[in-house]
């Protein structure tokens, strides 16, 4: 006798419940109070329909009136045992296909493609289930079985416990993903009554629903090492031939699948991608396809990274220990909470003098950055010390004296070009003012402070008249840059300085004189990046060459293979200290906080570069084979959101590891041959700023 039948026809607008599980939750955020309880159900919309037409639905409790809730709860218990359904069919309202406001979803069982189960275990309190449809691009939410709240599961577990042998194989469930009974196994058992369910041999706890032969090839390849079944191989080949471009789209839909398999990625830290995806990508047909279409490899690499990012995002950072592999030497790096106004003020006594050492302040900021979200003046105030505009050992009264002298000297410097009409007529000045005005008008115009007000009377505020800067804040940027252009005559203004000035200005903008001096101090550090002969940048690239070769040797070999060891793809992040690399300015500023401390090194930017490369190395090695592909991939990272703490933790670990390598090399006490540490690498351990000044401007040389 079939397990559940109904001779009566299903009333219109209703469905017949075949399976209900209560206390199934969605976890839309990490916070428990946002969890959404509901009922998972399988129901029959009509008496004569096929199994493919059965509905798999999630109905939030909040969508049901009390009597409906009662019906679902009763069904939860009564449908659980097969014998219980003799009492007759249970009908409920047809579930909503989807409802944006309530998280309900419902789909025909026939469109279900793949189910991944993660039973509860020590680090996963509630078991979860990931449902994937092949054609539906919408991502179905992950469902969590709160078994401790679900009466039917409690009932099943107590039944099992009565046997005094929870690990007995006596359970009649077809699929077991865990030794202990949990809601997910029961769900799989129910699905298997209405659909062909096959376990993937490639990926743990993954089940294919009504698999096709191509699916079988992808997820259940023969394990014997025998040659692939010709039929299935041909099927796949045909599909690929027929689809061409569409294959790439298939990858994209698979990414929906992969993004949700967080636990897998976390469990198997060394592998960025779930196995079926990996296998698919390694197929020669796919490989040649990637070669056929320009940009396909970059696309694949970006996609692979998005999966990794997703895994990191969904995973609780506090429990995720980065790369605790053997080669990590037990080095621990942590981030602390950002420095707030309250904490910053507590560093000072009543006279405004530091009561702790500046080293301690640097350490706090190095490990936590600055939280200026509440008090926007805080960052500027701290930077004034980090950049040594204000000496660390001053009192508030002393600083106000310093401030007055800064104000006076700024006005004097500004007057030097403002009031010198002869100077203003020189070719050099004209060249520079033109360059500055051009760049000021395209400096961070996405930021509120620099946005153009709405044009009035059809007149655009920021028009095409280059030298006419009318926006009040842009005008100040222009004046500061022109004053710097005079202050440092040999160097003058160079493109990119505007990018460095803009955050400094934002941090202090109502104090123009201080902004100028803070920028000038910042430029002391950055001058080497802007030299006419580019020597400072070239030296950093040379050092990075050695550093990457030492710390990421395999990746370095790959760069050589790609002819990318010129490292030009790192130029932008080096020139303006990651200003262009992140979608959010706050992320950039957090990095600047850290670099400004010079806590470990005055060249810490190179370790942040190294951390970014380390994070992406496996993906770049797997997918990218040309230097221009690497450039594009790295450039386009700027369009993503980044996990800054992750990058900073990696950077610190890399630094500490590097430092240990140097110490060991210096001691030379091992038996193997130790490397000799080049002066370039040794410089990385220094905290003093490397000052590299521009030489006097040769006769007739303009600003270019």
């Amino acid at each position, binding site marked *: 006798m079939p397990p559940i039948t109904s001779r009566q026809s299903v009333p219109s607008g209703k469905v017949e419940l075949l399976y209900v599980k209560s206390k199934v939750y969605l976890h839309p955020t990490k916070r428990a109070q946002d969890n959404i309880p509901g009922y998972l159900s399988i129901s029959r919309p009509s008496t004569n329909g096929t199994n493919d037409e059965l509905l798999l639905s999630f109905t939030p409790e909040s969508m049901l009136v009390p009597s409906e809730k009662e019906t679902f709860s009763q069904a939860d218990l009564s449908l659980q045992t097969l014998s219980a359904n003799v009492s007759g069919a249970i009908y409920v309202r047809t579930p909503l296909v989807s409802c944006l406001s309530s998280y309900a979803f419902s789909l025909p069982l026939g469109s279900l493609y793949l189910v991944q189960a993660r039973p509860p275990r020590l680090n996963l309190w509630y078991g979860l289930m990931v449902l994937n449809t092949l054609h539906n691009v919408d991502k179905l939410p992950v469902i969590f079985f709160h078994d401790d709240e679900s009466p039917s599961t409690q009932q099943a577990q107590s039944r099992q416990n009565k046997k005094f042998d929870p690990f007995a194989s006596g359970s009649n469930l077809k699929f077991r993903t865990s030794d202990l009974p949990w809601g997910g196994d029961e769900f799989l058992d129910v699905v298997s009554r209405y659909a062909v369910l096959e376990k993937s041999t490639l990926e743990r706890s993954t089940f294919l629903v009504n698999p096709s032969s191509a699916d079988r090839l992808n997820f259940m390849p023969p394990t014997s090492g025998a040659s692939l079944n010709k039929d299935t191989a041909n099927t796949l080949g045909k599909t690929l031939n027929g689809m061409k471009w569409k294959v790439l789209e298939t990858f994209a839909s698979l990414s929906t699948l992969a993004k949700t398999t967080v636990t897998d990625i976390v469990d198997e830290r060394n592998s960025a991608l779930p196995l079926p995806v990996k296998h698919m990508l390694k197929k020669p047909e796919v490989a040649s396809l990637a070669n056929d279409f320009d940009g396909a490899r970059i696309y694949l690499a970006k996609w692979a990274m998005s999966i990794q990012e997703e895994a990191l995002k969904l995973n609780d950072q506090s429990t995720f220990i980065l790369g605790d592999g053997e080669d990590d030497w037990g080095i621990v790096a942590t981030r602390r909470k950002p420095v707030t106004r309250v904490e910053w003020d507590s560093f000072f006594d009543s006279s405004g003098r530091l009561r702790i050492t500046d080293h301690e302040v640097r350490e706090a900021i190095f490990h936590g950055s600055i939280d200026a979200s509440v008090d926007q003046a805080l960052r500027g105030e701290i930077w004034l010390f980090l950049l040594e505009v204000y000496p660390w050992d001053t009192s508030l009264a002393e600083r106000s004296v310093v401030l007055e002298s800064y104000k006076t000297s700024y006005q004097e410097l500004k007057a030097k070009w403002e009031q010198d009409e002869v100077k203003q007529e020189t070719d050099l000045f004209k060249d520079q003012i033109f*360059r500055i005005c051009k760049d000021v008008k395209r400096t961070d115009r996405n930021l509120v402070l620099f946005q153009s007000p709405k044009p009035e009377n059809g007149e655009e505020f920021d028009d095409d008249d280059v030298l006419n800067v009318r926006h009040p804040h842009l005008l100040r940027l222009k004046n500061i840059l022109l004053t710097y252009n005079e202050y440092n005559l040999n160097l003058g203004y160079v493109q990119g300085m505007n990018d460095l000035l803009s955050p400094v200005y934002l941090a202090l903008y109502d104090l123009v004189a201080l902004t100028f001096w803070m920028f000038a101090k910042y430029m002391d550090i950055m001058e080497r990046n802007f030299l006419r002969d580019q020597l400072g940048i070239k030296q950093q690239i040379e050092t990075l060459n050695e550093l990457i070769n030492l710390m990421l040797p395999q990746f370095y070999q790959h760069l050589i293979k790609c002819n990318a060891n*010129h490292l030009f793809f790192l130029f932008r992040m080096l020139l303006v200290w990651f200003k262009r690399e992140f979608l959010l300015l706050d992320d950039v500023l957090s990095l600047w906080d850290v670099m400004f401390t010079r806590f470990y090194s005055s060249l810490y930017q190179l370790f942040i570069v190294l951390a970014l490369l380390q994070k992406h190395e496996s993906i770049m090695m797997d997918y990218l084979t040309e230097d221009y592909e690497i450039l594009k991939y790295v450039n386009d990272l700027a369009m993503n959101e980044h996990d800054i703490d992750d990058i900073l933790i990696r950077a610190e670990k890399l630094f500490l590891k590097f430092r240990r390598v140097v110490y060991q090399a210096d001691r030379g006490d091992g038996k193997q041959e130790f490397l000799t540490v080049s002066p370039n690498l040794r410089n990385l351990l220094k905290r003093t700023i490397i000052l590299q000044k521009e030489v006097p401007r040769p006769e007739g040389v303009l600003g270019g």
Partner: protein
Amino acid sequence: MSSRKKTLLKVIILGDSGVGKTSLMQQFVNKKFSHQYKATIGADFLTKELPIDDKTVTMQIWDTAGQERFQSLGVAFYRGADCCILVYDVNNAKSFESLLAWKDEFLIQANVSLPETFPFIVIGNKIDIDENKRVVSYKKAAQVCQQLGNVPYFETSAKDGINVEEAFDVVSRNALQQEEANDEFNDDYNDAINIHLDGEAGNCTC
């Protein structure tokens, strides 16, 4: 050459800072213009598939930084270019005067095998700006382009999308011609080596 081989055309855009190189590329590839472009740092490229007669080619368009000192580091990417677009701003005389310097700079950096026949194109951009601010006349520009070696000349507005398609159409055709010529050149070159290796190596008189 196998028919499967894709045709990839590499195009480099050069010109003074702020003449609209990024805007031209964006207008051609993405049909959009933004007031929020930033000065380009380093280099970047966009690709676009486009039909030329019965062929489909992929054009890889390289956008560069305008300040001269930043040119030297990115040269690795100029190698193998099939066409070079020199851009100036019709409202800025200096950017027009720089054209020749950019052309020479390119020929040196890109290591072009036959500089005399290498395809350049000159674009005078920003024709949307008030006519009385214009400082370089069409006549003057066309004349100079002729002196540069009969270089095709277009006037565009990347902002309003005027003439951009037309300019890039010529870019793509000339680049394709160059690419095919390069292929032939390389084939001949390879053949020459093969003959040499297969033949009487001992007779070498050098």
